[in-house]
């Protein structure tokens, strides 16, 4: 009992008395631990974060009716919604297409859930605003140019009612949309608006943006197919296949960078520790001259190393999480997941590295004749 308390007194006193040197060592360890916990946290969170980022490519799954004569009903729409796991859905936009005329020129109206379309396609460039009131539309840029309409202006849309008659409805342009693709030649309005003009005929297509890799997505597609044969869900290959290719690359980039940085930092930490310990050859000599056994000298140093490693690891895992959080906020503007397992891992790795780094110089010095060391050789 006495022996143990003496041991701890020696260890703590040695740490406290040589404050500046110990702070140096602690800093080194904490830095290593920060990098360890920070990078590993980022590495684990990257797929999730980048996966979200890749959703800016727009919808990666579309559902069309199997039989082109049929439409998608509201119940089927709910089915699709239910088929996508909670929390994975970024946006879901049903579409109804309808021929219409403005000034006797033929155009196509797309009725959709505007909120869903907005989430699906963050790349749409809007001049003006998204429609927020009934009877407001988002006009494709090409149409806006062709018939010279600007946001805020009014126009009359005529839709066929039956063979020879047509319905005239007034709309206000809330904004125009530029994409470089087919959207520029469509007129977007809310589902309610289009249903109020042409009645409820069902949906032509449903576009979904799901936060999932190709494998996961094809599972969702399969399930949907199984559940309802009248629906044909498809992956948008261009988006899904390419996402897998690029995401794999980015992940392996972060992986290899993490490995290299960690490897080098760990060696750096060990050399610093080794330098700090080598300095204390005299102390080792003195202890031995007073009759300490080699084992007790080594265990003294290991005890110190362990405490340093523990403190440094703890400090580092906190700072590492803070760093990862900063990265998450500034790069992805999102919180990064906290990995509770990183704390013990960081602390244990720090302790192991410090102890290894201590034991190398100590075991070298321990065999030296105390007299030689004390004389200053």
């Amino acid at each position: 009992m006495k022996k143990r308390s003496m041991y701890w007194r020696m260890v703590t006193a040695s740490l406290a008395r040589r404050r500046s040197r110990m702070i140096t060592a602690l800093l080194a360890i904490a830095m290593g631990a920060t990098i360890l916990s920070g990078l590993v946290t980022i590495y684990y969170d990257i797929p999730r974060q980048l996966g979200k980022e890749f959703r800016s490519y727009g919808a990666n799954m579309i559902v069309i009716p199997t039989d082109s004569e049929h439409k998608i009903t509201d119940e089927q729409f709910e089915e699709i919604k239910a088929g996508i796991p909670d929390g994975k859905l970024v946006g879901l936009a049903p579409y109804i297409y309808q021929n219409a005329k403005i000034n006797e020129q033929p155009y196509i109206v797309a009725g959709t859930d505007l909120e869903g379309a907005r989430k699906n396609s963050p790349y749409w460039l809007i001049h003006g605003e998204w429609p927020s009131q009934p009877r407001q539309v988002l006009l494709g840029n090409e149409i806006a140019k062709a018939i010279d309409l600007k946001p805020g202006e009014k126009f009359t849309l005529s839709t066929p009612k039956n063979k020879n008659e047509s319905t005239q409805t007034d709309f206000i342009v809330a904004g125009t949309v530029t994409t470089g693709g087919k959207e520029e030649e469509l007129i977007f309005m809310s589902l309610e608006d289009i249903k109020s003009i042409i009645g409820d005929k069902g949906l032509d297509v449903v576009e979904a943006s799901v936060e999932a890799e190709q494998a996961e997505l094809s599972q969702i597609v399969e399930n949907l197919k199984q559940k309802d044969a009248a629906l044909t869900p498809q992956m948008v290959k261009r988006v899904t296949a390419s996402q897998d290719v690029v995401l794999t690359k980015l992940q392996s980039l972060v992986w290899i960078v993490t490995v290299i940085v960690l490897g080098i930092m760990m060696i750096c930490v060990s050399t610093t520790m080794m330098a700090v310990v080598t300095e204390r050859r005299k102390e080792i000599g003195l202890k031995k001259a007073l009759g300490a056994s080699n084992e007790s000298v080594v265990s003294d140093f290991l005890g110190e190393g362990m405490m340093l490693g523990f403190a440094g690891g703890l400090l580092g895992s906190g700072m590492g999480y803070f760093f990862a959080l900063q990265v998450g906020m500034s790069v992805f503007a999102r919180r990064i997941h906290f990995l509770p397992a990183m704390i013990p891992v960081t602390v244990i790795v720090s302790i192991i590295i410090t102890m290894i780094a201590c034991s190398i110089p100590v075991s070298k010095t321990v065999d030296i004749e105390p007299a030689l060391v004390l004389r200053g050789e």
Partner: protein
Amino acid sequence: MFLRMIWGALFRQKSKMLMIAFTIALGVSLSTSMLNTMLGVGDKVNQELKAYGANINVVPKEASFLDDIYGVSDQEEKGQNYLNEDELGNIKTIFWAFNIVDFTPYFYAKVKVNDDSKDTRLVGTWFAHHMELQTGEILDTGMIKLKSWWEIEGEWVNDDDDDMIMAGSVFAARNNLKVGDSVELSTPNLKKTVKIKGIFNSGSDEDQYIYSSLKLAQDLEGKKNVVNRIEVSALTTPDNELARRAAQNPLSLTLKEQEVWYCTAYVSSICYQIQEVITDSVAKPIRQVAESEGDILNKTTLLMVLITILSLAGSALGISNLVTAGVMERRMEIGLQKAVGASNTKVIFTILTEIVITGIIGGFVGYFAGIGFTQIIGYRVFGSAIPPAPMVIPIVAVLVFLVTILGSIPAIRYLVNLNPTEVLHGR
């Protein structure tokens, strides 16, 4: 005498100095590799993002995309506008020609397959077209590279096959066609029997069409030297404020801004330059690809910058720590020097010189090790080398210099206040 002291210190304290040099080398290699990777990663990721295909669409003025997809404006055949096939090579002559990765033309023909009552769209295009430009440059470009996500059963068509086609999976399923089957294509101009060389699955509308060489499609429609549309895949710089303003109206820029804009690889300036070389064309960025590319590129670069900063801080701390430890350890020797009459400045100067020499050696070794690490990253991840950026050398040099000098400041302060007798006495 000074030199002898330095050399003596360096050699006698071999293991100590070696350790400092080693740590400096580690720190430098880390900084070098991270900085190089950070600077090179943008280009590499940009290349990878080309997997998403074209980011620029070139169409004739007044052309409509819509008939592609919904077949609406087909009712009346108005005077179609075309682009000139001859001018395609010009795309590779624009200011940013080097950034044009791939491009391919499309020509649309309406054909009846096996006397089907409905028309099917036949798309004539380049698959792996070989071009020799006036500039002497040789170029292979086309669909095969642009549509990396297509799944092919059978084989791609060659550009000189004029009796082979590729069928979309939806079209093939609808008509019960398999690879190797023969079908008859007919237009008012021509009847031709062709073989299906491949069936593709693209996961989009294209699956309902037939693809063939450009020549075959033009022959079927009785047209020469025309195309409907060109898709271009270009490496671009993410848009900034200037690019956004220019995209809205290039004329709103001042002369100087315009020059900057024109000479930066923004997608809008590349579009502008393509319009200059293709008569009566409109080049539009496909925002789905162009915008997202910019997003992901910016995010990846920022991520690398932050990781780089962290590793720079880490290596700086590692180096300065060891330098401090190294100097402190030598207080006996320095006490002796002071006891025999060395001035403070002289002592400091000697120590700094030693450390700087060690730093230079370590830095030199570390720089090359760092380039090695960069190449490991480049080859492991992207399968190609990341060119070392020259600007990394001064950055790392300044960093090492500052860190070693700063690292020795606390030690030097201590040494200056050192009382020789105390130290020599062993206190």
